[in-house]
């Protein structure tokens, strides 16, 4: 489904590369985890996949369903089924979650050749999901993410994930700053959406979330490259022994 080959990327107008030859491949229905120390480029990778304009891709290829996506606008990537749950969701002043999600879902349905949901059907879906994700109904009357706590922002990202039902969901540290209850909600959300044609890329710093969501493949990202790939047991190894060995090895290169 997603194929990344030798991806090099840097911040616009900066010389130093952040992603230095990253490759990975995610098949349909698979759950991959990316773990790595702070500053190793996890968020950069997640954002580059969606086409954030702050970054430039210097070389490499990214295909989604065999289509080269690097020239596509972020919204075109999203319409093709990609989704990023942000580590730090932006505040959207003056736009309420309901309004925002209606616009997003309408766009997606239009792209798929479907009619927009009626306000009534949409509202029902929205209310159900708000409850399922455990969001305070008062919160959705406010501007999106404005004045939301860290945990509320993350739940809100999950709400959007569940509403939009993407085919590739990238979760960037959705677990950080969450208590165990919230963590369970995230895991339940992901697990309930798992299906043979939907894939996940879970970016996390800790192994904790992976107790609830069992990944098929775990990658270790250090200094802009995948330095090791393995099964779920790799997450436990890393949790126990830390990233030191990988960092030392990367420095030695």
């Amino acid at each position, binding site marked *: 489904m997603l194929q990344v080959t030798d991806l090099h990327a840097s911040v616009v107008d900066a010389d130093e590369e952040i992603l230095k030859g990253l490759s990975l491949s995610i098949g349909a229905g698979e759950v991959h985890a990316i773990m790595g120390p702070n500053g190793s480029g996890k968020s950069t990778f997640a954002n580059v996949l*969606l086409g954030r304009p702050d970054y430039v891709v210097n070389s490499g290829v990214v295909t989604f369903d065999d289509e080269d996506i690097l020239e596509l606008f972020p*919204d075109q990537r999203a319409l093709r089924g990609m*989704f990023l749950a942000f580590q730090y969701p932006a*505040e*959207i002043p*003056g736009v309420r979650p309901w309004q925002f999600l209606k616009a997003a879902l309408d766009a997606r349905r239009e792209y798929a050749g479907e009619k927009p949901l009626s306000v009534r059907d949409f509202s029902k879906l929205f209310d159900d999901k708000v409850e399922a994700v455990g969001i305070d109904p008062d919160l959705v009357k406010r*501007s999106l993410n404005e004045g939301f706590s860290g945990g509320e922002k993350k739940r809100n990202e999950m709400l959007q994930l569940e509403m*939009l039902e993407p085919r590739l969901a990238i979760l960037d540290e959705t677990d950080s700053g969450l208590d165990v209850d919230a963590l369970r909600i995230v895991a339940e959300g992901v697990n309930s959406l798992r299906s043979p044609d939907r894939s996940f890329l879970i970016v996390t710093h800790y192994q904790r979330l992976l107790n609830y969501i069992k990944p098929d493949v775990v990658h270790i990202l250090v200094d802009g490259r995948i330095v090791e790939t393995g099964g779920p047991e790799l997450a436990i190894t890393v949790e126990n022994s830390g990233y030191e060995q990988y960092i030392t090895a990367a420095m030695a290169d």
Partner: protein
Amino acid sequence: MTLANATGEKYAADFKALTESRPVSDWMSELRQSGWDHFDSIGFPTARRGNELWKYTNLAALDQGKFGFQFDEPGAVEPDVLRERAPWSDDWSTLVFINGRYSESLSQVSSGDGVQVRNFSDPANSESLRTNLGTHAAVDENAFSALNTAFLVDGGFVQIPDNREDTSPIHLLFVTTSGGSRAIYPRTLVVSGINSRSTVIESYISLGEEGGFTAPVAEYVLNSGAGIEHYRVLVENEESFHIGTTRVYQLDNSTFTSTSFALGPKIGRNDVHVLLDAPGAECTLNGLYLTTGDQHMDNHISTTHAKPNGTSHQFYKGVLSGNSRAVFSGRVLVEKDAQKTQAFQKDLNLVLSHGAEIDTKPSLEIYADDVQCAHGATAGHTDPEAIFYMQARGIDEVTAQAMLMRGFASEIVDMIGVDGLQDYVHGVVEEVIPRLQAAAD
């Protein structure tokens, strides 16, 4: 005669023609004459040096003798056209003025709760009209107040009785049909009785494409405990000149809550001054201005706290695009006696193009020692992070930007407590957003 240029001669001839053609009561004729005398001695404030009040707004175009007063009958306008193009509800009491002249046939006034809503020149000149007209927006206030007073013919007079409850809005609708070389002087006087409640809408719209010159003056008097919810809607076309003067006089525990909406004319000025002249008065001035092309919109807002325990808010927002320019010059003066004053000022702007320019100057001048005041101003583009966030959910960039603009404007639009009016302003904002976007970088 001190106005020696072409403009001066033209206005002098117009004034002479008016006084000869229409005899009015002595007091009104004296008021007009004092307006003329003032204008004649000061002329337009076109000086580009030492002219602090008009520093940002160049009125040279007004001083070229193009515009003149035309005394004629109100032009013919189909009622349906007003319903379509102006804020309108059959539930409101509406006085309609076409090119400055009162149109009885288009107006519709429901009487019942003792409110007087009528044209000035109605022979039943009341004592209240006589004592208040020109008292709060005096002829020496500025050149436009003087000019407006000199050419007083028709205008909206609203007298709210004591203890009146707010049943339905009162609307003063000033329409320009063909601008051309026409100068129009709309006038409003609202006097609200003790503990009364009312909603008053002033709107200024143009139906034609030509630009005229409109110089309205509005005076609001709030007696003890009175409350006025005020709206000012400026939706004249892009070629027009609009220099508006609003003066508000508040007595103890009265509340004036105003929301202004201005779509940039060619040159626009919204000059508002509120005097809180007795303890415990409260005043809120909110506004939204949208400018593009080479429009110029100058919001000159000031509040004077003369007595203790008053509260005032100034909250304006602007969206600027193209090569337009907007000004927020907001002043709060807290006089020595005005202890326990609370005053807040804020001006926030979305500036969508490099060619657009905002001059925002909130200022507090405080002479009392026990006060609580704060002010702030910002100007910035739509947040690229927010745009990316929305794009990452499948919303295209143009739609995302429009949603942010709408969200920005909605903070003020949502404050409009009159349904029909909120829908109207909302509709105008929706119409303008694509134009602002087209001129954005």
